[in-house]
């Protein structure tokens, strides 16, 4: 067991890797009532192709990671989800672009719930019949998202930035793609992406770390899990086709999204986590509520409190995005473009503004530490190996120079793309 102390934040993070490769991360919070546990594999909707032990590569239909997540809960003679309920624990699961996570929280029966979490995720059961039934339920889920304008806006933007790529596809897939999923495919994926070396168990809350570790070890020793070599294939990204796209939708006001795609400067690990923190402060300096730019547009009714910016790095994808609800999206387009063209001037003499934003961002980071769920899920653990505490420390070390350097990387010669959801 290794313990890292975060002195200022008064937090400890205990880590351990078992002989079979399973990683365990524990954050004890003895003054809480609840414990939150998550078992994660770094396999998500972006994975399109893989190979085991140098065999022929296998293609993964869109929506499979999410489908597998649903299916793991169903066993031959029981429902894994209901079993959490029987223990009084509250369970859930989610799939995003780059990870699949299974989680529960509870104030009682912690040990049985943890062994159940490990057992149900590590013991697959797929049959032709249950796979067919799931195709029906997920069909409903896909329909539900089809009616959600915010989802349509986000997907529309990603399609404009990254035409035909896996990030622009719905995480749930389509009715057609999920219809091609078979039990054999699910077993193959499970043995590749759910082997212990690919799994991390995080536990945050009220528990005894030594006791938990012993229980997890005992549980893993009992299982004979096959280890194999996993090869992932990264996606070849197509160039952007259009600068503007649009779609009609059932909305009362147009929703508009803008994006800037960054193809250069691929970054990984801590550097990537840092770049996101820097870009967020940079975007606040250029487009935040406290800027004259924002104030001017807000007071003219061109943007409202729905306006937001984001910066994402997800594997090979790196992009800035802007979201708004407005009739005046032509004016907004010009205003964003001109702020980007003018970024060097806007950032001049902004050292003080940077420092106050930095303090505020650190303060916001500290406020997130109340929530066990945030501690376990809002770090960049899966993508870059940095937790929420690391991020607060990284933030404290940033300088204004970091902002200026990153501004050049993001906004020099940037191409702004737009997607509109019309009423």
């Amino acid at each position: 067991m290794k313990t890292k102390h975060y002195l200022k934040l008064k937090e400890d993070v205990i880590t351990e890797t078992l002989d079979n490769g399973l990683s365990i991360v524990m954050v004890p919070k003895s003054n809480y009532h609840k414990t939150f546990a998550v078992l994660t594999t770094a396999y998500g909707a972006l994975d399109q192709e893989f190979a085991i032990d140098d065999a022929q590569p296998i293609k993964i239909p869109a929506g499979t990671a999410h489908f597998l997540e649903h299916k793991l809960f169903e066993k031959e003679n029981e429902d894994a989800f209901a079993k959490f309920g029987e223990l009084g624990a509250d369970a859930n699961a989610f799939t995003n672009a780059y990870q699949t996570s299974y989680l529960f929280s509870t104030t009682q029966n912690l040990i049985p719930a943890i062994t159940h979490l490990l057992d149900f995720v590590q013991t697959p059961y797929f049959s032709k019949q249950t796979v067919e039934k799931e195709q029906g339920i997920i069909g409903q889920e896909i329909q539900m998202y089809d009616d959600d304008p915010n989802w349509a806006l986000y997907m529309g933007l990603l399609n404009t930035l990254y035409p035909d790529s896996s990030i622009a596809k719905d995480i749930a897939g389509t009715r057609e793609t999920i219809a091609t999923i078979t039990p054999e495919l699910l077993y193959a994926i499970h043995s590749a992406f759910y082997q212990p070396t690919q799994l991390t168990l995080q536990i945050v809350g009220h528990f005894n770390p030594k006791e938990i570790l012993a229980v997890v070890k005992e549980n893993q020793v009992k299982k004979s899990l096959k280890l194999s070599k996993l090869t992932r294939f990264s996606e070849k990204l197509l160039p952007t086709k259009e600068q503007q796209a649009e779609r009609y939708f059932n909305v009362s006001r147009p929703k508009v999204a803008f994006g800037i795609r960054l193809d250069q400067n691929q970054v990984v690990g801590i550097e990537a986590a840092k770049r996101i923190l820097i870009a967020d402060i940079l975007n606040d300096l250029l487009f935040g509520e406290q800027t004259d730019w924002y104030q001017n547009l807000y007071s003219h009714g061109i943007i409202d409190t729905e306006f937001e910016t984001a910066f994402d790095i997800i594997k090979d994808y790196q992009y800035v995005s802007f979201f708004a609800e407005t009739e005046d999206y032509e004016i907004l387009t010009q205003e964003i473009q001109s702020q980007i063209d003018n970024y060097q001037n806007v950032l001049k003499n902004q050292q003080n503004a940077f420092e106050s934003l930095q303090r505020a961002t650190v303060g916001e980071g500290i406020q997130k530490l109340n929530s066990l769920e945030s501690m376990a899920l809002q770090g960049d653990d899966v993508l870059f190996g940095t937790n929420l505490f690391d991020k607060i420390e990284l933030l404290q070390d940033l300088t204004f120079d970091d902002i200026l350097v990153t501004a050049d990387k993001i906004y020099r010669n940037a191409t702004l793309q737009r997607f509109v959801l019309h009423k």
Partner: protein
Amino acid sequence: MKKTIINHGANLVILPTTQFKTLHIAVDFSTSVDPKHISARTLVSYLAGVSSARYKTQQQVAQKTIDLYGAHYQTDVFRIGQTHHVRFTLQVPAPTYIMGGKQLLTEAFDFLSEMIFNPLVDNHAFNERVFANEQQSLMNELASVKDDKSRYSMAKLREITYDKPGMCVSASGNEEAVANLNPSDVYQTYQNMINEDTMNIVVLGDINQQQIISLLQKWPIGPHQAKEDKEPFYRQVPRVQLREVVEHKAAINQAMLTMAYQINVEPFDDQRFAVMVMNALLGGTPLSKLFMNVREKESLAYSIYSRWQHDTGFLTIAAGLDAAKVRQTDMMIQEQIKAIQEGDFDNQTVDAIKMSLISDYLSQRDSPSSQMEVAFSRLLTRRETSEQEWIDRVRSVTADDIQNAAQKMSLQSRYILLPEV
């Protein structure tokens, strides 16, 4: 729970704790719901969210929250039964965790006092420029309810469920009423709120009781505020005739089925624990009949749940489903209710559901906002159930109690939203 009265006007509850890395202040103004004033009160909350005499623009308010180490300042409106609430909340990082944060506590109280008591006003009316912006912004928000079919359906269900006009409107009011407001009416509404509403304050964090009281004594709280205390609970005489509305809407894929059932149990009757367990068994948890049978076994609806509203005595059911399956799903929902009425459920499931209700209840202690919500609820209802009593009451609910509670359900209204064919 210890209550202090500040300046003969406001009730204060202080919750000292080192469990969290934050400090919270919440101020709640409540009064009986009057449909004439709901929209204006919502607009007050919008105006106070972005401006004050000292911080004249949203930009200045945003800068101030940045200077308060990333404080979260928020204004909200909501209703509890027949009372309407305007609530101001401020969250800042706990001073212990930030460098140079000694003054933060004082600054936080000063800022909140400014936002509540010192609005941006010219000649007894809200500043016109800010007013026009926020009026538009609220109208946009109300218009966008239509874009979210679940929110829209629940609003429609509300309209046909209640007999009293004040109960039919949403807590945020309606677009048309907002369009007709002017800066001086809304200022009058604000004055009434400050001077006549019940005012409750809850403060939570690593704090010293005496220090908080002395900070609050500087606030300009008048002596008249506790003049009329309103009970939030609402109960309606059950209707014999079902009200049903079916509406078609273009460009949606899925249908929504929503229903409101009345359960005739007085607010503080001990049977409320049975109703709570019954709701959890019907559709309030993943172990429930609606979830297990309608969703999991028959794949009829991806989202389906029931919710028990203690404040109004209604239990609502909502399902998002394939338009062709509305009738079938409705029938199946009725079968689940009937099953509970007839005692067709097993003890094991009931025990699990009780455990999960108790776990949820204890988990609330891990969230500052839930702890504060409990304190507000105790202030508003003037009732307090201890932790042990609450747990004991849930545990002692029997299968008979659950059956009885289900037998009290009476369907009052049904609203169905269908895609246009």
